[in-house]
């Protein structure tokens, strides 16, 4: 688990910080540029002049002569040049907005949401958090040109309406080659004007990830705890499809959804087959999911048949299908080729049993939150069988 937000150990500021978003520069990335840059002190050699802010790693002696200086906590010592931070104006609160070494940067735009999903990993809050959107604009302006993937998450980013569209337009203008991914419950797209605005961003590298938890309103609306959600979400998907926008569907598997997974796959294949991909996602035992363990927990090996059948239906309907967040030892080999190592690096962990497993490097591993609930059927896969059975499983699929 990598910390993405923290507090500085010490902040020595001449006055409140003039801006919140800073791109880090270290000796390796040092140029003449100073605007919106903060220098990251990683050793005790002399520091370059002219930065509005200096950050020092934990354990370093602080140079006396610098006016604006913050000392990082030890858990942020992993930061390096080209990372981007948001820092409170008193220099205390630090959020890591961007780690340039990671391909899994996910930018939180809001914690507000019109859903209250039983298994939400990011429990919604109600306060105004528009500054998150402002930070995101700054971040996009500061990102290196070669950034490959930009992911936005919430809360529900579409609650910003045109504010989100402006941000996406900025992404297209400044980072035309980057894959832009937005997680949304899709309901706002049921208003054609919003779907049109989205399409007018005109970025072929942009995709929206929309969750679907059933084949009809009763189940989906219960899972997301919002009446009318299913009909609006599917209507939104239709509107986006009509405008040839790229769509990912996400189905989080738990005790309520896993038993009807083949029916969900059939529904997708029959009603919205134009989606670009479907992600079948293991449950993350964090946030609201922890409060609902009795309602939601099912051992993945108990939905093996449903998983295989759903993958078959989707795959044979030529819908690109991926299995996220699943441990290989709990799912049939025939669906291994569909698995993606998808747990964000900053929250990925392994089980002691995994240490002797021959397919650990191909496995999704665990969310760090698995400590709250994990299958008791986790079992290392011995080396001698894995190569052979991998081939077998590929042949079957």
């Amino acid at each position: 688990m990598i910390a993405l937000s923290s507090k500085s150990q010490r902040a020595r500021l001449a006055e409140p910080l003039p801006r919140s978003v800073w791109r880090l520069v270290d000796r390796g990335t040092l140029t003449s540029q100073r605007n919106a840059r903060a220098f990251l002190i990683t050793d005790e050699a002399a520091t370059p002049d002219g930065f509005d802010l200096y950050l020092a790693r934990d354990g370093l002696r602080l140079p006396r002569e610098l006016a604006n200086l913050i000392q990082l906590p030890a858990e942020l010592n992993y930061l390096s040049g080209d990372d981007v931070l948001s820092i409170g104006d008193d220099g205390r609160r630090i959020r890591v907005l961007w780690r340039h070494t990671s391909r899994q940067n996910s930018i939180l735009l809001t914690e507000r949401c019109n859903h209250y999903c039983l298994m939400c990993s990011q429990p919604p809050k109600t306060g105004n958090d528009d500054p998150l959107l402002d930070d995101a604009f700054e971040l996009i302006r500061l990102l290196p040109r070669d950034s490959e993937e930009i992911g936005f998450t919430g809360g529900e980013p579409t609650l910003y309406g045109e504010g989100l569209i402006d941000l996406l337009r900025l992404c297209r203008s400044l980072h035309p080659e980057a894959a832009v991914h937005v997680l949304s419950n899709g309901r706002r797209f049921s208003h054609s004007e919003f779907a049109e605005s989205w399409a007018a961003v005109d970025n072929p590298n942009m995709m929206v990830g929309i969750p679907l938890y059933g084949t009809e309103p009763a189940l989906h609306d219960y899972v997301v705890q919002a009446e009318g959600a299913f009909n609006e979400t599917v209507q939104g998907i239709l509107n986006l499809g009509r405008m040839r926008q790229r769509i990912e569907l996400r189905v989080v598997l738990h005790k309520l959804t896993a038993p009807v997974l083949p029916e969900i796959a059939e529904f997708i294949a029959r009603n919205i087959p134009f989606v670009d991909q479907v992600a079948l996602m293991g449950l993350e035992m964090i946030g609201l999911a922890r409060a609902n363990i009795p309602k939601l927990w099912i051992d993945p090996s108990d939905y093996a048949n449903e998983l295989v059948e759903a993958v078959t239906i989707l795959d044979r309907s030529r819908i690109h299908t991926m299995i996220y967040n699943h441990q290989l030892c709990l799912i049939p080999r025939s669906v291994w080729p569909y698995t993606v190592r998808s747990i964000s690096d900053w929250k990925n962990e392994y089980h002691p049993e995994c240490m002797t497993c021959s397919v650990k490097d191909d496995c999704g591993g665990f969310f760090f939150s698995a400590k709250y609930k994990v299958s008791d059927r986790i079992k290392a896969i011995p080396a001698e069988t894995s190569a052979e059975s991998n081939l077998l499983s590929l042949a079957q699929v």
Partner: protein
Amino acid sequence: MSKFREPVAFEAPTADWQLLPFRFERINGRVLLTNMVGEHLFVSGKDFEQVAEGPLPVDSSLVRRLRAKHMIRQESEPLPIELLALKARTRYRRLSEFTGLHIFVASLRCEHSCPYCQVSRQSSDKTLYDMSPETAALALDAAFRSPSANIKIEFQGGEPLLNFELIEDVVARAKSRNEEAGKNLSFVIATNLALLDERVLDFCDAHGIYISTSLDGPADLHNKNRPRPGRNSWELATEGIQRVRERLGIDRVSALMTTTRSSLDRVKEIIDCYVEQGLSSMFLRPLSPYGFAIKTKSFAAYDVDRWLPFYEEGLDYIIELNSKGVPMVEQYAAIILKKMFTNDDPGYVDLTSPSGIGIGAIVYNYDGDVYASDEGRMLAEMGDTTFRLGNLHEDTYEEILLSEALLQPLDQSFTASAPMCSDCAFEPYCGADPVYHHATSGDYLGRKPTSGFCKRNMAIFKLLLDRYEGDPSTRALFRTWAGH
């Protein structure tokens, strides 16, 4: 108190469910429901009574299944209607494409003398039964008039290789024409392969032409069905298949079988023959009603009763082969499964509605006569010219495609309005076959209770659903076929 609300909070607002169009059929104690685009659901007899008579509860597993398949809705919900409309539109989109398959009868002459063939002629006179370049040019004009983006030209006979110069001529002209038209243009030669030589192979290679041939099964059966001088039809066909596969590519040749009464006890041998030849697809065709049966008007349920066990045994054997890793597709099942599990209608001429005659496929006979289908041409050879739409030398494209000889059978046989079809649960999987019904019962519509077509297809639909419901690996296989 929990921050979360219970499922009951998300039930439908009322129990006033509105039924959307669906049809039903009782099968072995259960009831099959199909919606207007062919999605299906099995429910118990008791559940069905509840659906039919009401009231349905605001929520139950039955209600959820019915909602998922758009068989019921809340009156306030527009989404189920919109989804049904989208699916129906997808299903019928082929109609705006119009005719895609254009059959050129290059020659009626043939060196085979198969008893089940009504059309071929034994003659060495090229002028009598070969298509002339002038006729072919008119046929090509007609083919390029079709609005379809996909134009497939299939050369048939007789044996079309007996008039190979014409094939060369048509392919060259079609290709040069297509430089402007920009269609997705493809060619097939339907040949018995007896006359396959290097010139033909070179030409097919240069122009990406596909080969469709006949293979009736093991050598003795095939050679009995398909006599030719030398009694070596099977040897020439199988040797030809290998040559085509090696020269043109493994998927460039496919084979079709004709089922005769002698085939009926030998379905496994026939399938094994296809496997041995390295073919991965076959078509267990019904007995043809054209010919003897029509002349005697004796073709009906009797033949279907004998044929169905042949089909069932064959289908099960093909499923078993697949489970052993031998890839083989039964094409007729694949066509139906596509209609069951996707929104696509492959538009197979004999199993689509409106019928595919004329508007899916059309036949330009060697003499310029235009027929609505290949079977229509066979009927004409037996003296019944009902499905002759006109002649390329005498009639315009509009006159041909708007002739009563085409519009009447299309209109009268349309299953969505045909008695007994319109309320049949299998209607979305089935089709209209006005040529068959005209031949067997004297009108385009036919009488369904005595129709061999209806009996055969109903039995196949039930068989496929039974195998699909029965076993997950068959389900996966059927899904694969449906996705082809």
